[in-house]
């Protein structure tokens, strides 16, 4: 059966090549639920562009990375794909992405100034634009308004000192201040991004975790646990974070936009209005957050770049983004989409809108995912194992430098070559 489909597929492919029927098919690799939702939008695009067909290929998130890399190795990349924006450095290092600036310059639909700057920035690597933001993601505070009021505060904190004050009072009322699962790196990373010191130095070839900035972030993070404001738990130890949130085990929870829907659905009777969202507090005043999200990229190997770009433009139109957002729930990257969809008036989403103006990209090196894991391990050792912080950041820098060794070697080689020319 499978063999027959394969033969059939090959024949069809041959037909497509030999007979130019005027229809171009572009292949779009999308992940998980996004693929399902986007399939509904494709019909409209095909209607507007009679000569173009879009073949949506759905791959699960868990297999996406391997699948794309093997596709690269086998020269079988699609025309367009959605990429988590931390994956962009990797695929641009593989030299597989089409630079998009010329397309944007000529476009009347994609207006860079309409996008949140931190999110747009994640798509610029080495001065070149490689992706168009599709939807965004960041971390901020979810909190129990009623319990915070009980502790004597009528609004969420806007700075670390204020937050600490609130958590101390909350603890006195018998709750934990904040839940920050130890198996997640996003919390400490957010605190680190709030500092003016970058996380890597020397063109991303060395760790910068011994800087004053990261030390401050780690000290704050560790203090939350040392004071007993945050329980030292990982996700596996909390059976159901939503239940515990509404049970009042903790008041603040640092999490992402998908949880708006979850909390809405799971809030028990009588507690529907007990919770709210707020932007992340920073060392002094509201702080930065992670510029997460997913971008649309075009591969250099594509044979149909004009049509592919037209499809990217289509998906970037505010009214299309609005429909996409309504289905999927991930916040849109354009300010005009926010305005159009009325999301700005949603009390829970408003905090995200606010935070998105203050998001910062993580260092754009392909080793980043590995580095951030090392950072998490070190923070877990500090919190659980009581390792001194000075030693921890020193060790972390040593490990990160080892991870970046190859990058350093290439960097030096390229500079030598550039120097001799």
């Amino acid at each position: 059966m499978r063999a027959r489909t394969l033969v059939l597929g090959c024949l069809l492919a041959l037909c497509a090549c030999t007979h130019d029927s005027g229809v171009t098919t572009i292949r779009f690799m999308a992940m998980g639920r996004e693929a399902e939702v986007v399939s509904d939008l494709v019909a409209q695009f095909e209607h507007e562009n009679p000569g173009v067909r879009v073949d949506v290929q759905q791959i699960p998130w868990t297999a996406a990375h391997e699948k794309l890399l093997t596709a690269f190795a086998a020269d079988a990349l699609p025309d367009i794909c959605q990429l988590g924006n931390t994956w962009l450095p990797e695929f641009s290092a593989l030299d597989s992405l089409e630079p998009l600036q010329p397309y944007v310059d000529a476009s009347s639909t994609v207006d860079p100034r309409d996008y949140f700057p931190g999110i747009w920035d994640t798509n610029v690597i080495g001065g070149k634009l490689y992706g168009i933001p599709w939807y965004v993601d960041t971390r901020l505070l979810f909190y129990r308004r009623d319990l915070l009021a009980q502790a004597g505060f009528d609004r969420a904190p806007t700075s670390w000192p204020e937050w600490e004050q609130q958590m101390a009072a909350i603890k006195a009322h018998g709750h934990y201040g904040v839940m920050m699962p130890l198996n997640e790196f996003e919390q400490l990373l957010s605190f680190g991004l709030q500092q003016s010191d970058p996380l890597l130095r020397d063109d991303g070839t060395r760790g910068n975790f011994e800087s004053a900035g990261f030390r401050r972030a780690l000290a704050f993070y560790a203090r939350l646990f040392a004071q007993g404001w945050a329980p030292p738990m990982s996700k596996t130890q909390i059976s159901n974070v939503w239940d515990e949130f509404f049970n009042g085990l903790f008041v603040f929870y640092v999490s992402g936009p998908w949880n708006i829907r979850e909390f809405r659905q799971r809030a028990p009777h009588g507690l529907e209005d007990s919770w709210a969202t707020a932007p992340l507090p920073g060392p002094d005043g509201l702080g930065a957050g992670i510029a997460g999200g997913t971008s649309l990229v075009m591969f250099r190997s594509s044979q149909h770049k004009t049509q592919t770009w037209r499809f990217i433009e289509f998906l970037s139109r505010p009214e299309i983004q609005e429909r996409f957002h309504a289905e999927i729930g991930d916040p849109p990257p354009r300010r005009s989409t926010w305005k159009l969809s009325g999301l700005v008036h949603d009390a829970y989403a408003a905090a995200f809108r606010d935070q998105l103006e203050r998001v910062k990209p993580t260092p754009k090196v392909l080793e980043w995912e590995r580095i951030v894991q090392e950072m998490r391990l070190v923070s877990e050792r500090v919190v659980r194992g009581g390792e001194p912080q000075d030693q921890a950041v020193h060790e972390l820098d040593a490990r990160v430098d080892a991870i970046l060794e190859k990058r350093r070697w290439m960097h030096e080689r390229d500079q030598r070559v550039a120097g001799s020319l």
Partner: protein
Amino acid sequence: MKSTRIGWLFASPALIVLGLFFGVPVLAAFGLSFTDFDLYALADLRNLRFAGVNNYTDLLQTPLFWKSLANTFYFVGVGVPLSIAVSLGAALLLHAPAARAKGLFRTALFAPVVTTVVAVAVIWKYLFHTSYGLVNWALAHLGVAPVDWFGDAHWAMPAIILFAVWKNFGYNMVILLAGLQGIPQDLYEAARIDGASRWRQFLHITLPMLGPVLMVVGVITISGYFQLFAEPYVMTQGEPLQSTVSVLYFMFDEGFKWWNLGRASAVAFLLFAIILGATALLLRFGRKRDLL
């Protein structure tokens, strides 16, 4: 002369397939283990460096490698004897003259072996759940405080060992049962006439007669248990505090998460050397005792 050629001819399809799909990849991986093949090299072969034995020496200085090795030895050291003991116990029970419904029990005890690791691992994750799991519920009835199985670095590996033993003991049980059935009954009759107790019969007849079978079971189990991967991959992802990262898990991460194929290949060959060493030791012990 001619017959050997015909023999080669008959063996050649299998040999070609083995050579192509086993021999070549293994040789390629061995070559890879002396380079720093990674994503940069995948992008441009100019970025590939010959690394000599660096991958190997680096690994020996990587704390996580040693940790994964220690975890694996812990798993093998406790898991293998426990697994064989449980298999032997079950086989003895099934072999006992008093046992009823032998077919049913044999099938029931063998059933875990043919289940899918991933599916049953998910179920065991529920069983080991801290607040709602059956295991802690049973312990509570014995007055034991709840154990945080997958959150506490001390308990995660024992939980995985219990699961692995449950999953695998049926296989060895069947082999040992066959061994037990091969022991002549008259030996036991003679011992009974001499007035030997059940325990003495076990010690002086059953165990020595089972020696060669136990040897085989031991070798198979050890080489299998060294390749621990699916259980932590599904149940703990190596957590907490990397206490369930096995050597193979470490290799998988190096290779397919970080795409350091050079280092990953080096891990594979180190593990191969370790398994080879362990089984060679066991076989030597067996030969000394005349078990082989």
